[in-house]
């Protein structure tokens, strides 16, 4: 058992909320690199690594993994405090697919060998993961994917291409959805594979996002081999895992903490420009503040459900829809309230406060597109929850 696992043996759930918050705040304030706070973009792996290792050393890298796998095993109440303090300290988003997606997947769907092979390397920072789901011309229609894998001896041989892979240029590993049976209907015949990015035959091109940052890659697979032990779950049942992961992702993307980040900027702007003296502004601000609080109540309902180990059904889509709509409205209010500054591409200094008005706008856009667009979420809710006819 490594140092991380030892440190994680502290039972944070037994701690008083305020004491836990103080500990988190002190840790984040003291240890996180000053120059990386409140950055208007995701962190690169090079920038992330020191903080990744600090977190890992303290056993705080994976707050939501069970303790036995090296996580903090936090209950939802504590997890929210952890996230709140993360936002408060302006900690950047690292290439965290390993912690947020791969870990939970292997814990739930993987086998013992896969967990033993991959989880420690996530915690140690040796493996950096990226996601290979979407394909060119597939977009929201995920089930129509065409990248295929054929079993040849002990290896799956993969051919095709994945797109919108965030930070693939910094990743050591990729998890991919591949078609392993072309004879059956769309959602069936799909499998979930783990692949080393250094495998011969993998190439990629970077794609700049609207803000001009190299956020994505298209990844090409040309006879790429991965050992059959890298199949997660059963053959042709990858869709179930993907759906499970999408549910995780929706819980993640539906949390109030990303919109909260925009609120930080809005609050700062409002104080600097004395907007709280303007009742018209206060009305609009309050509406969104209350939307965000109410999102918190809805989110809490799902967190409680997850805590009781109840399955998260398709209704969780509503969380993502409302969270992302609120986030965008907030980012739009920030630009409007900034008046002429609302067109400034970079940070501005107002009343000695540094305010980034534009970044929340850009970071709020993909939330209604990726992980199933809000339109797709509404289709899901209509069909599976409201059971409206086709």
């Amino acid at each position: 058992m490594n140092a991380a696992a030892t440190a994680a043996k502290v039972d944070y759930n037994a701690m008083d909320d305020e004491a836990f918050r103080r500990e988190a705040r002190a840790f984040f304030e003291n240890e996180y690199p000053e120059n990386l706070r409140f950055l208007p973009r995701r962190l690169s792996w090079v920038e992330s690594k020191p903080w990744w290792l600090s977190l890992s050393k303290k056993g705080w890298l994976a707050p939501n993994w069970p303790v036995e796998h090296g996580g903090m095993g936090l209950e939802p109440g504590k997890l929210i405090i952890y996230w709140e303090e993360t936002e408060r300290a302006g900690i950047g988003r690292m290439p965290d697919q390993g912690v947020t997606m791969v870990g939970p997947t292997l814990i739930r769907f993987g086998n013992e060998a896969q967990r033993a092979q991959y989880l420690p390397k996530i915690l140690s920072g040796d493996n950096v993961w990226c996601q290979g789901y979407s394909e060119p011309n597939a977009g929201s229609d995920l089930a129509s994917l065409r990248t295929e894998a054929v079993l040849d001896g002990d290896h799956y041989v993969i051919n095709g291409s994945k797109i919108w892979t965030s930070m693939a240029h910094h990743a050591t590993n990729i998890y991919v959805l591949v078609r392993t049976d072309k004879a059956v209907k769309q959602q069936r015949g799909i499998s979930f594979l783990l692949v080393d990015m250094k495998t011969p035959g993998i190439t990629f091109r970077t794609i700049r996002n609207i803000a001009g940052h190299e956020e994505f890659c298209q990844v090409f697979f040309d006879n790429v081999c991965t050992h059959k032990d890298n199949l997660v779950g059963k053959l042709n049942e990858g869709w179930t895992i993907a759906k499970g992961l999408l549910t995780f992702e929706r819980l993640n993307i539906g949390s109030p903490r990303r919109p909260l980040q925009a609120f930080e900027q809005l609050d700062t702007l409002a104080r600097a420009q004395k907007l709280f003296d303007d009742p018209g502004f206060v009305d609009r601000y309050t509406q969104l503040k209350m939307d965000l609080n109410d999102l918190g109540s809805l989110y809490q309902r799902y967190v409680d459900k997850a805590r009781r180990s109840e399955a998260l059904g398709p209704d969780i889509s509503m969380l993502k829809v409302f969270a992302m709509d609120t986030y965008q409205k907030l980012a739009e209010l920030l630009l409007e309230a900034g008046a002429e500054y609302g067109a400034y591409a970079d940070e501005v200094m107002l009343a000695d406060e540094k305010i980034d008005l534009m970044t929340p706008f850009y970071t709020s856009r993909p939330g209604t597109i990726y992980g199933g667009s809000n339109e797709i979420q509404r289709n899901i809710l209509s069909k599976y929850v409201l059971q409206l006819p086709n």
Partner: protein
Amino acid sequence: MAQADLNEHRSMLSNSVTNFARGVDLARVRKLRDTNAECDRAVWTQMAELGWLGVLAPEACGGMGLKLGDMAIVAQGLARALVPEPLTAAAVLAARVLADSNNDTLKSKLLEGLVSGEMLPAVAWQEEAGSLDVNNINVQATPAGDGFRVNGSKRFIMGATSAEGFIVSAKSAHGMQLLWIPRDTAGATVQFDRLADNRQAATLTLANVSVPKTHIINSGDIAAGSLARAIDHASAIIGAELCGIMSRSLEITLEYLKTRVQFGKAIGSFQALQHRAVDLYIQQELSSAVLGDCLAVLDGEPDAKTRSAAASRIKARCADAALLITRQSIQMHGAIGYTEDCDVGLYVKRAMTLAAWLGNGHTHRRRYAKTEILEGAL
């Protein structure tokens, strides 16, 4: 009360409400327009017998001493069936104020009467539209004999059509007085305005009304604090009623979307209507999440600031969601939704009455902003 008993009560309540609601005929609600009989005393007695009027009242007064979370079950269930009787006005607003009284004789008489259904008191506190401040009043109580002489008028009084009397807040030299004024008291006149759902809002005018000492319910800061808490609790339970209204209205509408055929297809197969229905559903679920979350806060008896914030969160979300959902229910029904015969019209009207009572969404957002945003920002 022990947890096991609580659970038993809660489950009993839930079952009894469901059974009752199943038997409700909306014809009676439709007739309100002509009869003004928003409180049928036979129905009221039945509600009393089922224990609903005493959910919050202390056991010493014949009540169950349960929580707002329990009361919400009853209110939501009855609202789904559009029961017009003034449950929240009496069994929350009046019951809360009376339970705090230190005039034991009066308290027993009124609260026991309320719980048994024999005595219906209505709370008359508000004077200005859009104001939730219990101290923003002009009704004056000047000393006279061993009690007071009261002058002024109160508006927006719900549950008054068959009330036996009013719990009136008044200003005096020694702060607020909460006074019991029987309906037939000399100098008290009541006037009614029809509301959207054909229930009535009363205006009570008091001209030199004599109130003996024995009719003082509470005085001073205790009176004001008690009234403010009662209003917050009633606002929260109105939120539960609004949840009942919106959920039933959406249910009816979803059923219509599944069965109504246009252009050769069920209209619920049109994506534009599907997405709109989804947005309404999200508002419904948000309302229900906020209601649950904030009722738990209220049942924890927090400080006044936290309590008001929780009540305002409930009322703001539930009022606006219910208005949106019921209005869209009309739209999605098309022409039939615009007729008196269509049930969704009854829901939109009840939603309007409940949304406006004790502060609409906007009023509650303003109040929330004042304590939760502006005080912190300054």
